């Protein structure tokens, strides 16, 4: 059976914002995929998006390990807080474009913790991949994406459902 990708939601920011939320996510799919094409609203600053699921803002429930390359150094980190990636990125003047692609595996399962695989591509300064875990067996019904800096107008956030 061919895998199907179904567009669920999409938003292009018309003004700078720090928070984008997807709520009432259907449980019909096996996985979710989020594609963010963005840049920060501030020049010469960097930040990193972080996720909250089902309004859970307790950092203790989130774990992440990643690998990163800057072009001059290759590193790996682990963190114990809400994050899509360990290091900030997107530094430059003017603020450069970057993108982030996350896969939320078995998001609607109720018998396992949730796994999130993320690619970060910021050609201006950094790239890498992370694997994260949300230590909750509830189905993910909402995803909130936030950052310490504002996402600039024109940034896009697209959510897809992936069927087995």
């Amino acid at each position, binding site marked *: 059976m061919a895998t199907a*990708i179904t567009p669920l939601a*999409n*938003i292009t920011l018309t003004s700078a914002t720090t928070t984008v939320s997807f709520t009432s996510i259907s449980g019909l799919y096996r996985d979710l995929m989020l594609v963010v094409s963005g840049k920060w609203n501030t020049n010469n600053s960097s930040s990193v998006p972080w996720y909250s699921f089902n309004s859970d803002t307790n950092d203790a429930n989130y774990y992440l390990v990643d690998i990163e*390359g*800057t072009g*001059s*150094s290759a590193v790996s980190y682990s963190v114990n807080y809400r994050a899509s990636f360990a290091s900030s990125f997107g530094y430059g003047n003017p603020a450069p474009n970057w993108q982030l692609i996350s896969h939320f595996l078995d998001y609607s399962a109720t018998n396992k913790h949730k796994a999130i695989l993320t690619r970060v591509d910021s050609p201006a300064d950094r790239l890498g991949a992370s694997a994260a875990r949300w230590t909750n067996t509830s189905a993910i019904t909402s995803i909130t994406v936030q950052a310490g800096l504002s996402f600039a107008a024109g940034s896009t956030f697209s959510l897809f459902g992936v069927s087995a």
Partner: protein
Amino acid sequence: MYGKLIAAQTVGAGGTSSITFSAIPASYTDLIVVYSGNGGANLILNGVTTGNLYSRRYLQGAATSVATSSATSENSFNGIWNYYGSETYMFGTVYIPNYAGSANKIVSAETLTEINGSGALRQLFTGAWSSTNAITSVTISALTTIGQYSTAYLYGLTKGSGGATVS
């Protein structure tokens, strides 16, 4: 898990110097290129090989070593599929979001290079193309020759609308 198949190509006898997907419709929002073949290659957008419009950054793991590098002002996405001799086999995907939009373009690639049992290389690659033009063609350009039976597929993915809130 790639979306709608737009086009597919298989290399015939004698190999080829390039694989090109042209006249790409603007009716999708993201593109995905899947390449599986014998032979290293660069990636070129809209046939543009002048103006130093490409920059790249990559992270590689090669079992006993790890490497990262970057470059700016190049004339292709150089090294997206590296070449290590005639027995080099490549597999990988390239994701290009908002390919028809008016912003500069970013590519996200994950590739594997296998050197006929003598080694393997896993690479994450990102690149920026400093052009606001919509992408209408994608070329996989051989570093030497792309061998017979190599395949390339182009997929289109369409984003939804609405369903998100901001604050």
